[in-house]
């Protein structure tokens, strides 16, 4: 087995570097830059049962070493994804994690059942933590009972590995993580963005039409690292880390804290090849130190 392969809840990834949902489109926007099949995987833009136009502008603004976004889960819908995007990804050998979003348990199950009919989906990631939509979203992820209920329903509806994306806004995130594990999740992804705000003092108004937006980028990293550490210490299933990973060093921090894999998010906006850079650096690191990546996981604990 290669130095970089990792096992994530029954799914072997060729390396532990993925891209985060919402920060990588559908993986088809990178033809000019690199072959995304090289990555451990890509998490699609959050897919809903029906297409969504998203929130009105302004949707984004920059903050110190980070940014706020309130995109509102604009996406083509699961049907168009299966028809137009997935066949190309499958053909190219991309490891596809379908990130899905719904405002009811029944719709989460309906999207899952649609994905069951396709080949080429490696895992399903449940977005129970979007801070930017009024219905559903984060409400599922803040509460251990509700997060467990969604997880259990999707678990029962598919043979695919089920990952659950954690909200940092849960009062007790460890309780939510344990509830998802108990409900049959194969892995946990942590963390989604944290709600933030920004005000334009010249125009004396909020910068985002949605008032609040999800805070991401390098400034988020220490908080994400702390939460990943806590969750990884509390559950037996793998944890996949997200939160301000821009460089190989950042990825290593999360792996050493106990994450089984990492997702590169906002950094893709700064450099379309960011995830590839993180991966190449990780390979160099493992080769130079003559270690396989599995032996690094959790070794700072």
């Amino acid at each position: 087995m290669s130095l970089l392969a990792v096992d994530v809840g029954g799914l072997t990834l060729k390396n532990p570097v993925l891209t985060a949902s919402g920060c990588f489109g559908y993986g088809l926007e990178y033809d000019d830059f690199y072959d995304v099949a090289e990555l451990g995987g890509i998490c699609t833009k959050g897919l809903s049962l029906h297409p969504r136009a998203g929130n009105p502008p302004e949707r984004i603004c920059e903050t110190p070493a980070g940014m706020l976004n309130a995109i509102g889960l604009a996406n083509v819908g699961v049907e168009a994804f299966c028809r137009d995007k997935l066949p190309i990804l499958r053909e190219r050998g991309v490891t596809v994690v379908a990130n899905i979003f719904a405002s009811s348990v029944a719709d989460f199950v309906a999207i899952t059942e649609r994905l069951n009919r396709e080949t080429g989906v490696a895992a399903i990631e449940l977005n129970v933590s979007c801070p930017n939509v009024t219905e559903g979203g984060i409400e599922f992820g803040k509460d251990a009972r509700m997060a467990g209920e969604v997880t259990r329903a999707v678990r029962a509806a598919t043979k695919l590995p089920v990952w659950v994306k954690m909200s940092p806004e849960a009062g007790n995130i460890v309780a939510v993580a344990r509830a998802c594990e108990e409900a049959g999740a194969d892995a946990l992804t942590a963390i989604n963005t944290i709600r933030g705000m920004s005000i334009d003092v010249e125009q004396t108004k909020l910068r985002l039409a949605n008032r609040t937006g999800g805070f991401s980028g390098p400034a988020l990293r220490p908080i994400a690292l702390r939460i990943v550490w806590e969750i990884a210490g509390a559950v037996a299933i793998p944890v996949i880390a997200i939160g301000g990973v821009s460089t190989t060093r950042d990825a290593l921090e999360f792996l050493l804290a106990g994450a089984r894999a990492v997702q590169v998010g906002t950094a893709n906006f700064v450099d379309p090849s960011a995830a590839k850079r993180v991966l190449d650096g990780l390979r160099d690191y493992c080769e130079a130190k003559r270690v396989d990546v599995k032996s690094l996981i959790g070794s700072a604990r």
Partner: protein
Amino acid sequence: MSTRVLAKRRLVTLTLLRRESIGGLYHVLTFEDPDGSVALPGQFTMVRGAEWGDAPLLPRPMSYLSAGNTPSILIKVIGEGTLRMGRAEPGEPFTLLGPLGQPWRAPSAGRRVVLVAGGVGVAPLLFLARRLASAGGPKPLAVYGGRSARDLPLDDELAELTELHVTTEDGSKGTRGRVTDVLGELLAPDREVFTCGPDRMMAKVAELCAARDVPCEASLETPMACGYGVCLGCPVPTTDGAYVYACTQGPCIDARRVDWSRGDHAPKKGVHAPRSKP
């Protein structure tokens, strides 16, 4: 709208060859690109100092002022990113991602081109004017406006390439008023307009053109994080009630498709509660 086959996008680290301070808040940054940029007029690039570290985090979308081995951009210092660009010294490395977005459509045969620029929006129009000049043909007409004479960067160069009308709101140069005050008399049926400037200006230009049935192409400006179609941060409302993304479906777009009522200072209904201003 037909989508042309566009050049491959590259992220390159280029050295700043020179920075010319051209008065007020305006600078022209010229880079050294040994491979040569194949950007077309109207396309843009995401620019960031290679040594900025984690802040400012995001690259800034900038229209190309020129391409080739010395691609250049025109900047106006308005925030932290442009402040650093406005202080940059030759030799400093920058990353440029480009060429991005839809260029200006090719001017129609038999129509005379009218360029309508507001302030820093002159950049993609000046690039177009240079291309038109090197292709020969009649000189385009142009209207260029700003608050005052200080807000007309590169007006001398535009004057060389076009039959130029200048307007300033304070009357310090050209006709006192706005571009739309003089545009009306230039809108003959056999003309077509290319415009770039503040939203409110372009909205009014689009309205005048629509009323006279003169084709109008606008270059959109919105905040954006990635510039290549994945962040979805740059939606622009369209007349059919949907959105186009300025980065990939724009920035250059038929002005009739845009719902200009979005205006950059328009109140966002149902979003911001009324509140007293300090």
